């Protein structure tokens, strides 16, 4: 932990030998990044399967799904999902996706791999702590997965785990015994891992930049990871005590979140004097910055990739940095917009609505910068650039519904309907995932030294792009029609006519899900059959392209790079070629 040993670790790396040191207990940020990516890939497959199970039940609520009874005899007798088990699957879907996919891959995965390289460092500032962060994250994942297999099964309170449902224990329903406790423990462990990761990212960005890599010259992806880690440092710090207090309510008999006189399952709960609203405040004070933690790396990645294919820089690189910072800062002021109908003083809604609308400004500026930059550029179409364009499209689609939900008057009607489900799936479930796909297709050649198959990639993109619109666009209509969310089946008179829409969505979801097999196949194909990648297959400027594909153990082969240029010198007047790399001694007039 001393400065001397940290220094030694980063500058006197000797390559590890032995399988375990190289691939399992590695302190190399690249291996750790791939480990996070692999964990995220595994998690997203599970999360997607859960969503298929949910969607099948929503379209056909009496459907017997083969094998389901094996997974949970109580939850799916005769292979037909009970409403409680639907909620359990929904809870695990949300928890796995938000934490182990969206917080994991764009930030811990790509960030770990590329942040040190993009700033010209040999590794992260604290390589051993980095390794520990991954294994702590994996432990959290395993604790969460255990909830599937304990008696009672996984919790059913949603990824938001609202009290008092989440706090009172077994009486609240199946899964609310050990399952919910495991959830609280898992997420608390996850918070610790994220905090350690954030420390590493911040220290590396500020302290380990190579000569010439001023903060202003850092790529947009690095800026995004840096801002995300600052947000995360303070956001996860609130979720951790929240989960601890929830844990105490559940096992130690405290009443932080449970009021008196609650009768559940015909039993008077022993708690007194707690406040369910307290949980909401604590959770959403974390929860809102969390969704920006999920999207900001994708914003950075897309903004980093597009210039390489436009062969010109973004219209306003520094403005984009400012937008990301503004979004990060404002994200702490809006948590109450999740609580407009919670019973808080209605005037407080204005206090949260205004900053929420303000936060749309930097998001809109960023969007206009992407559109304005691509307009008039001869964008080279590759899978990576397609996913970037797709990102912009779904970010707009998802963002616009945010404008509506930000207003308490409208939200009173739309809260807890499919309108909200559409909103957050577009921005998180699609836009952030598209950012991950763009990053994968762009950076895979660098990470494993082989080019991905472009035909398969484009097929993957088009089916997915059309598919997600088929899945999530109709949900806006459903929400406006009053379709309540978190219902396992629709039996009310006004909901029954909407079931065909749900069935359409389910079929779209299954087709889109199947299309992801193309991506998985492509990953495997690339690993074994992909054509070898050169150092700089995209003719890009940032530091990751100044080294081999894949990079050597210490990233740059012992060389200490010197950076002469800003990050996106594409198509610059006076340059000898179409682009000037950051390490190139050739400098051109830079504003």
């Amino acid at each position, binding site marked *: *932990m*001393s*400065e*001397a040993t*940290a*220094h030694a670790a980063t*500058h006197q790396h000797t390559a590890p030998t032995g399988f375990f040191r190289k691939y399992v207990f590695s302190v190399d940020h690249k291996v750790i990044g791939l480990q996070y990516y692999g964990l995220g890939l595994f998690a997203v497959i599970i999360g997607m399967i859960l969503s298929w199970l949910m969607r099948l039940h929503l379209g056909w609520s009496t459907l017997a799904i083969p094998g389901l009874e094996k997974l949970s005899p109580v939850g799916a007798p005769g292979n037909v999902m009970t409403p409680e088990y639907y909620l359990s699957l929904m809870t695990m879907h949300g928890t796995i996706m938000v934490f182990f996919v969206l917080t994991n891959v764009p930030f811990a995965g790509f960030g770990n791999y590329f942040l040190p390289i993009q700033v010209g460092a040999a590794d992260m*500032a*604290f390589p051993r702590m980095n390794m520990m962060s991954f294994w702590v994250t994996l432990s959290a994942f395993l604790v969460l997965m255990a909830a599937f297999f304990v008696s009672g099964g996984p919790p059913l309170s949603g990824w938001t785990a609202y009290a008092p449902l989440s706090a009172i224990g077994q009486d609240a329903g199946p899964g609310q015994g050990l399952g919910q406790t495991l959830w609280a423990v898992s997420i608390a462990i996850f918070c610790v891992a994220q*905090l350690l990761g*954030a*420390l*590493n990212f*911040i*220290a590396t960005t*500020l*302290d*380990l*930049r*190579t*000569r*010439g*890599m*001023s*903060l202003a010259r850092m790529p947009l992806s690095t800026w995004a990871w840096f801002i995300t880690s600052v947000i995360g*440092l*303070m956001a*996860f*710090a*609130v979720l*951790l*005590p*929240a989960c*601890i*207090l929830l844990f*105490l309510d559940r096992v*130690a*008999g*405290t*009443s*932080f979140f449970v009021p008196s006189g609650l009768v559940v399952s015909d039993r008077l709960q*022993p708690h*007194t*004097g*707690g*406040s369910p609203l*307290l949980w909401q*405040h*604590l959770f959403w*004070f974390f929860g809102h910055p969390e969704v920006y933690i999920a999207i900001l790396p994708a914003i950075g990645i897309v903004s980093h990739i597009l210039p390489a294919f436009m062969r010109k820089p973004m219209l306003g690189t520094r403005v984009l940095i400012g937008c990301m910072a503004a979004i990060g800062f404002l994200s702490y002021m809006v948590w109450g917009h999740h609580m407009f109908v919670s019973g808080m003083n209605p005037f407080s809604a204005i206090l949260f609505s205004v900053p929420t609308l303000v936060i749309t400004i930097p998001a809109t500026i960023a969007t206009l910068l992407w559109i304005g930059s691509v307009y008039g550029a001869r964008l080279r179409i590759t899978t990576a650039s397609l996913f970037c364009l797709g990102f912009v499209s779904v970010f707009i689609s998802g963002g616009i519904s945010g404008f509506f939900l930000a207003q308490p008057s409208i939200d009173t009607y739309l809260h807890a309907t499919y309108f909200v489900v559409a909103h957050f799936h577009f921005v998180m479930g699609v836009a952030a995932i598209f950012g991950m796909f763009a990053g994968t297709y762009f950076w895979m050649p660098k990470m494993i030294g082989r080019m991905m198959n472009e035909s398969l990639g484009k097929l993957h993109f088009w089916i997915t792009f059309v598919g997600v619109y088929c899945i999530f666009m109709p949900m806006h209509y459903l929400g406006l029609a009053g379709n309540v969310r978190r219902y396992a089946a629709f039996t009310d008179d006004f909901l029954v006519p909407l079931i065909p829409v749900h069935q359409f969505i389910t079929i779209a979801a299954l087709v889109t899900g199947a299309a992801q097999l193309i991506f998985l196949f492509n990953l495997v194909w690339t690993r074994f059959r992909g054509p070898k990648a050169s150092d700089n297959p995209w003719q890009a400027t940032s530091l990751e392209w100044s080294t081999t594909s894949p990079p050597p153990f210490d990233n740059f082969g012992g060389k*200490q790079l010197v950076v002469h240029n800003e990050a996106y010198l594409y198509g610059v007047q006076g340059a000898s070629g179409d682009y000037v790399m950051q390490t190139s001694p050739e400098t051109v007039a830079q504003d």
Partner: protein
Amino acid sequence: MEFTAGHGHAGLMEESPYGIPSGKLAIWCFVLSDAVTFAAVLFAYGYLRVGSPDWSTPFSFSPSILNGIVMTFVLLTSGLTMLAAVEAAKAGRTSAGTRWLWATCALGALFAVLHLLEWRRMIEEGWRLFQNPTGGAVQFGAAFFSVTGLHLLHVVGGVVALLIMALGFPSGKYNRTDIEVTGIYWHFVDLVWMFVFPLMYLMNAK
């Protein structure tokens, strides 16, 4: 002599905007994060206290507040000894630094012992996380034991860290920067107590 992030590779790396070694930057970031954690727990305490119609204020001057004053004095003194340890370390006076580290460690351990004795006394009177022997809000016990418990956990962690430092500093296993990093953490723990004592003890005095 202060290490900067770029030292040892003079001119080969960019200067850190904060000009301090990575270990110090990291502990400052950790302190920021931990401060937010304590803020969240204290917010929960305040929220429940304000919302509670029958909040207890059970602490009489003797023994509770008096004990709290002694604990505060012990912790503040340990802050002074920590400062002395850091100054000695920076000046290269290893054995003096080690002695001051041991003093800080001992004072921290004393704080923990006094705290646990107080807990034992309260538990004997019937206080629990879920129980209030005076008949008032049970949230008092929940808030009191969680807030002070979280702080005590940090104190014990600090005592362990100080022990490791005191053992490793003489042989050079840890250097002056490590002592400084430990010092930053220890001062933070002290600072948190300066919030916990007024909010948890003085505000709940009879």
